[in-house]
């Protein structure tokens, strides 16, 4: 083994600590508000593929969770028909039982997902230029490193470029538009980037107006941005690209918020499409279920995004029931189609609401 200078080891240690911190701490905060990025999902999927037992257990827990949710949904529907108070209470009790069961399942799922996150962090560290240590030692090292670094030191490590140096050492393709200077794998685990490193004015970071977004004219003042699950964050807009608006918090952290998940009020700031008044906003109501209406070929396309130009990721047969709305509708002015984000048969995407009717 080649002996490295002490300085190199310290840099490696700092890298590991930063990486671990970003992987476990910040990511959790980010995902709790915005949901995981595609790259994070990919990183976890890769880890799970190498740990099949964990993958199977997670699949079983999630499946049980979904079954219980379906039971609750069915019970709520039945409850509306019941006349006697005693009967309604009986249903309520069953719903409470299922809800308690779901809470238990969620706790188990969270525990395993934490394990997965730790595993992904460890694996990422393995890929960095700091090899030569046993996996268990690396885990200990990361934990110790995290405990000795306070928040200010972490920020300094990021600001000093150590973080970027580590990032460029990683063998990964560059990321997508908007945060192009950060490698994809780093972006996947570091949704928060320092304020000093705003998306540069390179060709990769150029603002690409999306259909329906006209000159976003970023509002540089700090304001409250709302997200679907009711949480809010004080931030200012740095830029907007084809998929995301890049927001910066007061503490200098920045992140990308998918445009289609912005609430109507926020979308107005971008002059982006807002939901039709005719279609209920699921952020305000319970999940809505729809039936697929008849189409010319008997199938309703599920697309990856709200527009005919987006890829077809699935098809729903006419007459299918239980199509679940999972977000606010988006009006595509170009084709005058109201797109509804849905989930059906485990597939998520957007369908034209012209071919959906409430159940």
């Amino acid at each position, binding site marked *: 083994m080649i002996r490295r200078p002490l300085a190199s080891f310290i840099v490696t240690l700092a890298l590991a600590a930063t990486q671990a911190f970003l992987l476990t701490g910040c990511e959790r905060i980010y995902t709790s508000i915005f949901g995981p990025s595609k790259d994070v999902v990919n990183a976890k999927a890769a880890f799970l593929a190498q740990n099949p*037992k964990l*993958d199977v257990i997670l699949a079983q827990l999630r499946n049980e969770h979904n079954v219980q949710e379906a*039971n609750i949904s069915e019970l709520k*529907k039945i409850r509306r028909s019941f006349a006697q108070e005693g009967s309604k209470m009986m249903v309520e009790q069953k719903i409470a039982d299922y809800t308690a069961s779901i809470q238990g399942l969620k706790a188990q799922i969270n525990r395993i997902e934490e394990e997965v996150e730790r595993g992904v962090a460890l694996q990422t560290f393995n890929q960095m230029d700091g090899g030569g240590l046993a*996996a268990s030692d690396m885990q200990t090292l990361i934990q110790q490193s995290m405990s000795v670094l306070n928040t200010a030191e972490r920020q300094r490590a990021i600001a000093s470029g150590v973080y970027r140096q580590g990032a460029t050492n990683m063998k990964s393709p560059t990321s997508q538009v908007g945060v192009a200077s950060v490698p994809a794998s780093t972006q996947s685990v570091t949704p928060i980037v320092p304020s000093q490193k705003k998306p540069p004015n390179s060709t990769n970071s150029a603002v690409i107006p999306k259909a329906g977004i006209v000159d976003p004219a970023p509002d540089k003042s700090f304001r409250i941005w709302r997200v679907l699950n009711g949480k809010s964050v004080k931030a200012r807009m740095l830029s907007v690209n084809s998929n995301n608006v890049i927001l910066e918090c007061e503490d200098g952290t920045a992140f990308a918020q998918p445009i289609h998940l912005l609430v109507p009020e926020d979308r107005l700031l971008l002059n982006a499409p807002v939901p039709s008044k005719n279609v209920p906003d699921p952020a305000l109501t319970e999940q809505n279920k729809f039936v697929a*209406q008849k189409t010319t070929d*008997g199938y309703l396309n*599920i697309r990856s995004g709200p527009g005919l130009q987006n890829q077809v990721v699935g098809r729903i047969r006419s007459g299918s029931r*239980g199509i679940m709305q999972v977000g606010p509708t988006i009006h595509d002015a170009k084709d005058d189609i109201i797109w509804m984000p849905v989930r059906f048969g485990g*597939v998520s995407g957007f369908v034209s609401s012209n071919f959906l009717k409430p159940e």
Partner: protein
Amino acid sequence: MAALGSCGRVQTQASARILRVWSWPNFFSTEAISSFEKKYACSVAIVNFETNEELFTQLDSNGGGVDVVTPSSYFIPVLAKSGLINEISDVASPHIFHVPGLKGADTMPSAFVPYTWSMSGILSLGSISPAAHLSWDVFNQPALAKKFSLLEDVREVFGAALKYLKASVNTVARPEIDRAHDVVTNWVKSCLFTANSQYTIGLEAGEIQMAHGFSADAWHASRTNPKFRFHVPVEGGVISVDGFAISSKSPNPGLAADFIRHMHIAESIAVNMDWSGLFSVERSALERASKLKEFVFSSNEEGLKKSEVLMDIGGEIDALNHIWQSLLEPR
């Protein structure tokens, strides 16, 4: 060195096999799955779907890495036409049960290995006298208005109406469908609610006196409340055969075939049938399932002979769906 060791471990883990199965809820017992995992040194990840249409969408999107699916027999042509499942050549078809008079069980589609069947009929809490004469006509009786529930499944409800009219559940004849339409219209107006699961709570709560439902649900419910009864109407019940198909994008087609074979060995069948309340299609297994048989057919021993298996009706399903939606919409 340690790093190499670490890589080696990862490689070993990566080679571990996972079989991904998409099935109906409560389709496989834990014991049956565990014995397969043990024998073939693999893990089985099961995800449930609620309708055949959900299964279609999942398979059509990308296959999701799914190996084995368990659709209904009548849905196989839809999946096959879209190239979503492969022909199964190396799994012997079971000796499928044969009941004189029962239609449809002997004409299973290719690319499908039948596994279980269940019947839809009428559920009650406590005996009905005389149970042997219970007819689908009971849903037309004013005394039962708003005191029964219907399954929320177009083929099951139209199947029941067609049996009531003494027509085939697989008819595509317009006059018969029109008559069934009238029957179903009245039933939907008269029922208290439609649901595909959880409807047994309506009986337990006393809100309904009868429920259009599945024999397997009655079997499950009877474990906690022995008063649950299942009745096969005098005109016969509606049978769905569910079984195995292998996704055309299966990452493990060989293991998928092993799984199907394993589930058809006698021990697996016995364990699974008792647990799920779903009859095995195996002729010999059906003969041995005395407890389940008694539970389902105690009220009407001749019921099975008059029953019928749901089969593919091609494009006619769109017309039925259209009717069905228009009936449910006002609710």
